């Protein structure tokens, strides 16, 4: 099972929720896909056992063969190449490694060479949680290939918790798209609500079942509850606004380790998710059966 933890807005507590959830599930797998700013390791404190380079491919021109015909520039949709007539200039950060220039070059003058864009780190925590994260190299623009690589560590027979990057763009979709369930973490402010709506649009769009966790919960912010009730969206957990939780977090301590109540709440949360995905699963098989009948 794959559970992804997302939020439109940054700093709402995605990593706290993801790491807490992983901690209360025996033998879970934690996958940190927030490769621009991975923080899961700060909360779960894994021992890293290995680190591998993740590469992207960049075109290299063989000037013995190149006649500056400009075909590579024509087929590059991302304007990553410029023809200077004596040199084909490459803007590495614009290149999406699609391979079109290499394929279409009439002189076979292009080969693709790997360049590191980040690292995939693997480890294990004291509680036997398998830990993986991606660390994007500084200055690197495209996170998606690294996210894909980190996601290859998903173990289907186990419960995988994925920590998503913030926002609602391609990196987030790449992270979430084949999840069985998505937890949307928000906070009781107009910013939190605005960004929650955006995130809900995305998960609905890609058809992933979801529920909401309200962090830094403040009952006086009624707009949040009103919106959720109107749209029949279930709040699966409310974590109170509490300076003590924030202080513990600042030292890398998860709330489940400082409050028994919150630990129990997270165990309840995982049970709730299991129930929901099970009932969804049956619904889906039923739908399929109906379809085959036709």
């Amino acid at each position, binding site marked *: 099972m794959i559970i992804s933890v997302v939020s439109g807005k940054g700093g709402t507590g995605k990593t706290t929720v993801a790491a807490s959830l992983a901690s209360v599930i025996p033998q879970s797998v934690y996958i940190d896909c927030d490769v621009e700013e991975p923080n899961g390791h700060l909360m779960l404190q894994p021992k890293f056992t290995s680190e591998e380079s993740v590469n992207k491919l960049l075109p290299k021109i063989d000037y013995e063969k190149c006649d500056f015909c400009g075909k590579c520039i024509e087929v590059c949709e991302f304007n990553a190449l410029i023809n200077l007539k004596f040199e084909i200039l490459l803007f590495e950060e614009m290149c999406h490694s699609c391979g079109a220039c290499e394929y279409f070059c009439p002189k076979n003058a292009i080969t693709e060479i790997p360049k590191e864009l980040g690292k995939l780190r693997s480890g294990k925590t004291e509680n036997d949680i398998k830990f993986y994260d991606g660390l994007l190299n500084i200055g690197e623009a495209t996170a998606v290939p690294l996210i894909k690589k980190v996601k290859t560590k998903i173990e289907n027979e186990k419960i995988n918790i994925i920590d998503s990057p913030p926002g609602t763009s391609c990196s987030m*979709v790449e992270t979430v798209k084949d999840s069985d369930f998505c937890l949307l973490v928000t906070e009781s402010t107009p910013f939190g609500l605005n960004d929650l709506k955006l995130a809900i649009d995305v998960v609905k*769009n890609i058809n992933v079942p979801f529920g909401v966790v309200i962090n830094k919960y403040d009952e006086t912010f009624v707009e949040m509850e009103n919106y959720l009730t109107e749209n029949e969206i279930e709040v699966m957990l409310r974590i109170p606004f509490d300076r003590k939780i924030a202080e513990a977090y600042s030292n890398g301590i998860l709330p489940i380790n400082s409050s028994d109540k919150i630990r129990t709440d997270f165990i309840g949360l995982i049970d709730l998710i299991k129930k929901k995905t099970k009932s969804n699963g049956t619904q889906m098989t039923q739908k399929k059966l109906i379809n085959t009948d036709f």
Partner: protein
Amino acid sequence: MKQIVILSGKGGTGKTTVSSAFVKLLNNKITIDCDVDAANLFLLLNPKDQKQFEYFGGKKASINLELCSQCGLCESVCRFDAIHDYEINQLSCEGCGFCYRACPDDAIKFTAIKSGSYFECSLQDKSKFYYAILLPGEGNSGKLVSEIKKSALNNVDEKTKWVIVDGPPGIGCPVNASLSGADFVVIVAEPTQSGIHDLKRLVELLKTFSIKSGIVINKYDLNEKITLQITSLAGKENIPVLGYLPFDEDYIEAIKANKTIVEYSSHAAEDIKNIWAKVEFFMDISKN
């Protein structure tokens, strides 16, 4: 004209709170919200006279099955795992056009798609404000940031003193795009383990751009030990600390009232004024 970009690396440290406060304090400015994934600044600034522009960020491919001879070449050349059974998944399609160009039957269409909108509006003091909304799940957020900055900067005239840019989180492509043309970066950091971790990565990124910066430590009293660590990191990196803001529920109450912190709390307004004075000071004395 000077362009100030507010960044944080980690999300939720208070970028928009600080940006909105600067906007409220300053005259003769243009304001741009570059967090196109999750724009929030407009919630505090109550913009008016909104004009909407459509943004076409890139193209996507689709197969015309009537022309398709099912040779499978498109699937084999696609590096983004977007093509299966002669169908192109629009969410996975990177927009590279490789399949469209390779198809021997001319069965693939490659068309521009709308990836978002951007808005030009006026604030109470008649100054211009720009923000954008990316359609859910779209890529090209860096390109949208460049686009919105370009249209905003077209409005710079001799009276414009400041361009205030509320930046996106992270250190990836939209952040790079938001930094083009910046004169000074205000980094909003928080004293947490994650906060200092992400701050270090942002500082590394800024070095590659050689842009002057300063740090605001928000919620400094949440963890004074880490605040001290940030201060010493700043010293080592030769980055001035512009000021310290407390962990104070006023900041949340201001957002809940849809107000900037300078409108909501007079002592916070003093803090922000002092921070801005330092921004001006450090921007002038040293140029990299």
